[in-house]
């Protein structure tokens, strides 16, 4: 049965409707934004999603738990490792298994490396959307080093699938610690270059300060988490409030800014890269010896009940809800996607600003479309 589309209010006479996407260099994926303009001012933005909907949640109802890990890589492919970790933690919580300390350390180091490379790619595309195309190459040059580390240890650059319920699929490569330390040394020198190129630039500041302001109450109400929420002063870091893994033992700061505009969201992500490096430095030399995986049964069956796990992905809070009926497939698996909630605030943020600002705001919210559409 079909539903009639309600008049979404965009087809008024004086308004000029343009379509940004689905094929467009700036929407970072296949997203269609129907924008209603009056001159240069945006009156309303309506996102149309679903171009890359693959039915991951429905597929998971017929897959075993180790098989589900391979699907989670493809959600928000820039935080692949963190997505894997989320499902693994949920399963381990349900089975009440304690993973070895070694696993916790390695998972945290890889998660922070994932966060760094995700923010680097965000920086590249943000600069490019604003017109400074050189940023794209500088960020990618450094991101390649992280991807090389992933490739050596996990076997894949972007799609890692290194976690498994109970621990890791295989032990780390002997070169891992050395390469991570080299990367940290190299990146500490390069990150100030990023600031010199883009952050301090007057043109960039004029285009991002006081653009797209969201207050703290609105951020909480719309569910805008992650760096986008922290730019408005919403302290939502899951690693701090509901720690998992080794995060209660590491020392790091959650960057919070009060203004809530595009520039503060930008600054939060730059600061997060420094904080991630701090976390890695505390962990990299102290990886304890031990097993890389706890003893698990060959067929994993979760006891009957509902389980929820929250992790801090690069974009915000990722939630995994598993409803199990006692057999080897989940009865229902729901993934709470950070990008969908961030996108829902786009209309509020962009109304009243110009088209050029819409691009900047979309870039600062940093949504990844496969995460929205799942």
């Amino acid at each position: 049965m079909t539903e009639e589309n309600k008049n979404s209010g965009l087809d008024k006479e004086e308004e000029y409707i343009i379509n940004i996407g689905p094929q467009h260099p700036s929407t970072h994926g296949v997203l269609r934004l129907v924008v209603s303009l009056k001159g240069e001012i945006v009156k309303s933005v309506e996102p149309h999603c679903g171009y890359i909907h693959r039915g991951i949640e429905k597929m998971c109802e017929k897959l075993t738990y180790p098989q589900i890990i391979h699907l989670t890589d493809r959600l928000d492919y820039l935080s692949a490792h963190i997505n894997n970790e989320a499902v693994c933690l949920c399963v381990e919580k349900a089975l009440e298994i304690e993973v070895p300390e070694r696993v916790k350390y390695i998972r945290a180091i890889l998660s922070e490396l994932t966060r760094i490379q995700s923010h680097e790619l965000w920086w590249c595309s943000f600069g490019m959307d604003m017109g400074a195309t050189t940023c794209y190459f500088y960020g990618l040059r450094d991101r390649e080093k992280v991807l090389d580390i992933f490739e050596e240890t996990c076997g894949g650059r972007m799609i890692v699938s290194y976690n498994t319920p109970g621990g890791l699929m295989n032990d780390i490569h002997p070169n891992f610690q050395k390469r991570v330390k080299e990367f940290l040394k190299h990146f500490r020198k390069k990150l100030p270059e990023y600031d010199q190129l883009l952050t301090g630039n007057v043109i960039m500041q004029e285009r991002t300060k006081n653009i797209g302001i969201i207050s703290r109450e609105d951020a909480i109400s719309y569910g805008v988490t992650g760096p986008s929420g922290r730019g408005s002063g919403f302290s939502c870091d899951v690693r701090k409030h509901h720690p998992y893994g080794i995060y209660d033992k590491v020392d790091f700061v959650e960057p919070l800014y009060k203004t809530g505009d595009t520039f503060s969201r930008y600054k939060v992500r730059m600061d997060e890269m420094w904080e991630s490096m701090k976390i890695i430095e505390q962990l990299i030399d102290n990886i304890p010896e031990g097993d890389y995986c706890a003893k698990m049964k060959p067929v994993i069956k979760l006891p009957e009940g509902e389980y929820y796990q929250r992790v801090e992905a690069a974009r915000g809070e990722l939630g995994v809800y598993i409803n199990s009926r006692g057999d080897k497939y989940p009865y229902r698996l729901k993934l709470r996607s950070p990008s969908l909630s961030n996108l829902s605030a786009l209309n509020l943020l962009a109304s009243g600003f110009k088209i050029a600002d819409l691009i900047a705001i979309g870039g600062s919210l940093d949504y990844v479309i496969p995460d929205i559409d799942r």
Partner: protein
Amino acid sequence: MPFNIYDFTSFTQWIDKSLYDSLSPLWAMIWEMTIIGVAFLLFYAVIGLFLVYAERKVCAFMQCRIGPNRVGPYGIIQTIADLFKLLMKELIPIKNADKFLFNLAPFIVIITTFLAIAAIPFAKGLHAIDFNIGIFYILAVSSMSVIGVLLAGWSSNNKYSLIGAMRSGAQIVSYELSVGLSLITIIVLAGSMQLSTIVEAQADGWFIFKGHIPAIIAFIIYLIAATAETNRGPFDLAEAESELTAGYHTEYSGIKFAFFYLAEFINMFIVASIAATVFWGGWMPFHIGGWEAFNNIMDYIPPFIWFFGKTFFIIFIIMWFKWTFPRLRIDQLLTLEWKYLLPINLFNVLLMAFIVLMGWHF
């Protein structure tokens, strides 16, 4: 055949004389114009090819990569390959577009650049049109390119092109004021609008040094305004690929797109050569008044090398802007012009006039 690379006047006089001696005056004039026209067309094409290649290489080196290096040694033949590709592309006719204006627009843009390039002094004696209102002529002719841009956007029957053309039109018309006023500052210093007089007057020092403070301010403003005039660098909102696909030339394909593209580069060459002529001495070598030995060494380098060297250096600076800075938004662009550059410019003209009256220049 007298060919002196330091002074082309003898060469051009020899061609002129031999033509008028051997043919009737009418035919001699026609042949002479044909020769000059063909020479300019060739020069235009070669400069266009070279600039496109240079842009790609400069851009690549700034972005930590190499740029074209497969087609020919060091990728020199890349632009020719691109040209062939563009020539072979289908010219897609738009259904509801105004056909006459749609086809006319690229030609207007090309013709205005062609007219402007004829008035530039390349070296002593290599100066095709030497009006006594040289600078005024160049400004007037290059202002006509905005007609081509607006026609292109309007006749494409496309919302994006229209938005892009409107933005571009507003931008070009605004920044012409700044370009004109900064050139007027130097005309005040030089006392004449004729380009050859301006260049000759810099024989003992370039205007940017002679006119110290107001000339430097005028140069900086000219550089900013000229980048905005040619829709380049941080002012390329009209063709911002990440926002509106391609702005006013979205619907053009094949050779017509090649015309817009080429015209943009030649425009860049024209504004850079005007800057080099008016502020940096044109084809005059770098002389310091009083240091005869130094001046003799500087004189050893032929004038056209000086001219092209200066022009390409300014082109390099313009390209540097484009690949480093993010884009300005349209209202910030117009605010910059009307609220900041225009008052500074007006004040600068007054300052220069005052300095000339008092005789406080070198």
